[in-house]
């Protein structure tokens, strides 16, 4: 079997790559994933997903007719952070919270103004919709913040804390979430091309038996794998470039590092992605199963366990341990850095090393799975 791996002929190789490229160009679904998916993802991330603060719809019930209550109610009504719906009683507002129409309700209690006059304020009641914890936190923070600035204007604010923070966000002072969403979507697109597309294409050849037919020809296994690899590798780099250009032009994400570093990082990631795709196809030999496995072991980990959206340090220890075998975990920090920080080789090199290591492991597995099923 040894000579099979090392057998190599440049003409044969070129012919195989040409065949593979023609197949890619002919199938519209490949181009869909390589060029439509990146655009779709960038637009969804750019417009649809916003993890930043936004207007929240809340209900307001004013149970007190005094002047302070009216003034505070106005403060809530005029806040740009809230969209206020009013009702005279709590019940109809609460029903709209149940119906998922309002995210919180604010109740100014009956003796609010009188208590304020006596200098012993009664608390304003804020009830958030706990079924969406993130929004609930925002709603509570807004309600408290608006009260605080209102109280300050009225001259009844308690003395503020002595120590205050002077925060600076490096690399992304305006805190645009696009700055991490664009590098993240590049990771997802490269995973889709490397793992899902490769797994599907090769599984189809297994399913139809064309792969066995190929193996009966003088083609060596190394040549076969390289012929699958090179076109999809180029496709992956191509859609990475498309994402980058769109990210810079349409979404204003900077590329502060060098193009060379970006290429090195992306290439290093495509190796484990492609290796995993080849391994899945050889192990399953069935398009449906291969697709499910590719989603499960490629797409989902890249999305969930890479630190792209969810912080790895917040996950339970066993899941954190799993993230170490997810190649995208090493890609995401490098990509984010090359875009918004610059060339930090001290961070890139260990990550590139890990990705190459996983690439080698997955290729070894793919070789073994292919060999076993042919013997």
């Amino acid at each position, binding site marked *: 079997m040894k000579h099979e791996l090392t057998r190599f002929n440049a003409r044969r190789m070129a012919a195989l790559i040409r065949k593979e490229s023609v197949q890619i160009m002919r199938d519209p679904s*490949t181009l869909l994933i390589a060029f439509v998916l990146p655009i779709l993802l960038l637009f969804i991330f750019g*417009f649809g997903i916003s993890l930043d603060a936004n207007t929240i719809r809340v209900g307001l019930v004013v149970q007190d007719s005094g002047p302070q209550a009216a003034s505070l109610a106005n403060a809530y009504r005029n806040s740009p952070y809230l969209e206020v719906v009013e009702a005279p009683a709590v019940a109809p507002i609460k029903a709209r919270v149940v119906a998922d129409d309002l995210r919180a309700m604010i109740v100014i209690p009956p003796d609010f103004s009188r208590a304020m006059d006596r200098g012993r304020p009664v608390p304003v009641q804020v009830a958030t919709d706990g079924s969406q914890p993130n929004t609930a936190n925002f709603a509570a923070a807004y309600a408290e913040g608006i009260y605080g600035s209102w109280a300050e204007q009225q001259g009844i604010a308690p003395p503020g804390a002595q120590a205050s*923070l002077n925060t600076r966000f*490096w*690399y992304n002072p305006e805190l645009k979430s696009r700055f991490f969403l664009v590098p993240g979507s590049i990771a997802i697109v490269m995973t889709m091309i490397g793992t899902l597309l490769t797994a599907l294409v090769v599984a189809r050849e297994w399913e139809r038996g064309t792969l066995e037919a190929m193996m009966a020809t003088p083609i060596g296994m190394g040549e076969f794998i390289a012929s699958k690899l090179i076109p999809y590798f180029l496709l992956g780099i191509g859609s990475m470039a498309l994402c980058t250009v769109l990210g810079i032009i349409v979404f204003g994400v900077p590329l502060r590092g060098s193009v060379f570093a970006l290429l090195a990082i992306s290439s290093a990631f495509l190796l484990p992605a492609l290796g995993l795709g080849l391994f899945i196809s050889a192990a399953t030999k069935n398009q449906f199963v291969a697709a499910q496995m590719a989603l499960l072991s490629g797409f989902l980990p890249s999305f969930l366990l890479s630190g792209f959206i969810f912080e790895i340090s917040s996950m339970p220890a066993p899941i954190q341990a799993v993230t170490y075998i997810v190649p995208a975990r090493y890609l995401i920090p490098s990509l984010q*850095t090359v875009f918004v920080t610059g060339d930090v080789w001290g961070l890139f090199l260990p990550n590139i090393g890990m990705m190459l290591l996983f690439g080698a492991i997955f290729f070894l597995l793919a070789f073994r799975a292919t060999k076993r099923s042919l013997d």
Partner: protein
Amino acid sequence: MARIWAMTVKEFWALVRDPKARMALFMPPLIQLFVFSFAATLEVRNVDIGLLDMSHGSYSTEFTTQLAGSPNFREIKRLQSPAELERAIEQQEVIAAIVIEQDFDRRMAAGQKAEIGVVLDGRRSNASQIVSSYIMRIAAGIGASASSTPPETVRVTNLFNPNLEYVWFNLPSLIAMIGAVSGLALASMTVAREREVGSFDQLMVSPLQVHEILIGKMLPPLGISIINGFAYLLAAVFIFGVPFEGSLFLFFLSLVLYNLALIGVGMFVSALSHTQQQAFLGSFLATVPIVMLSGFSSPVENMPEWLQVLNHANPAQYFLPVCQGLFLKAMPAADVFDWMWPVALIAVVTLTTSAWLFRARME
């Protein structure tokens, strides 16, 4: 009727015949459920932060102790110089670095305003903001123990989920999300597979009518998705301890409608594709916006107007609030109906369109 039944039985066996495929029907959704529910949290815990303390007084020490005691931070790394701070942030050794200037303790002792500098990693802007709010809360408390506590001005309670448990939000939402990922793939593959091997044409020339074929193709994936949906429900309640306050019957009805809509979208993709690969990639392309724009990752009302209009065709954005509502809020039937009728409409439109496409292709 007998023909539809025969078709359904045949389809069901086609789905579960292969042991690997059988695994692929039930295992991935369950694995997704577990990984998602533990991993998908926007909370930030166990992060490392850096500290450059140039004051070394009693107030700065109090602040440091409180930081170290916070469950949100794992390690407080002592930094010696601004250069070291820069490197620690750049290499992502810490997500934030705190700078306490030399005059901090003197100002605090004199009762003057004092500033604490915080440098945060803007690459992870979301997590950084959360970390900065943790630090702010701790900073606000320094020296406060001396004075009396101020009176309560705003009392916050959280309805339906008093402790804001993230998993109570995740699990109900995942029924809608994972259902979309697996249901759509399943439906799009059933027709595409036969089309690729050519047996679909044989079906079309059999005495079966187009609607009989489609119903026969629909029922097995529907059944599997409903089994998966109820498996999630059981896992959510008994493994993760999420309360289910609503009506099981309403949950079942909504689940059926939701899956019919997904199957409709899957069939539609399938009707447009020639090969399994096209069907799969097409359905994946449909899944991405369905999941991302469902309101799970960020609220629908935050999206721009034009996107909200397009999103009316997204069945997941209606089913998601119903799932959350039935679990936590005991959502009444009238509200469930208000949310679910567009889903029924989507199901009717997509299913009739795909039936029409199949028939058109035949003639």
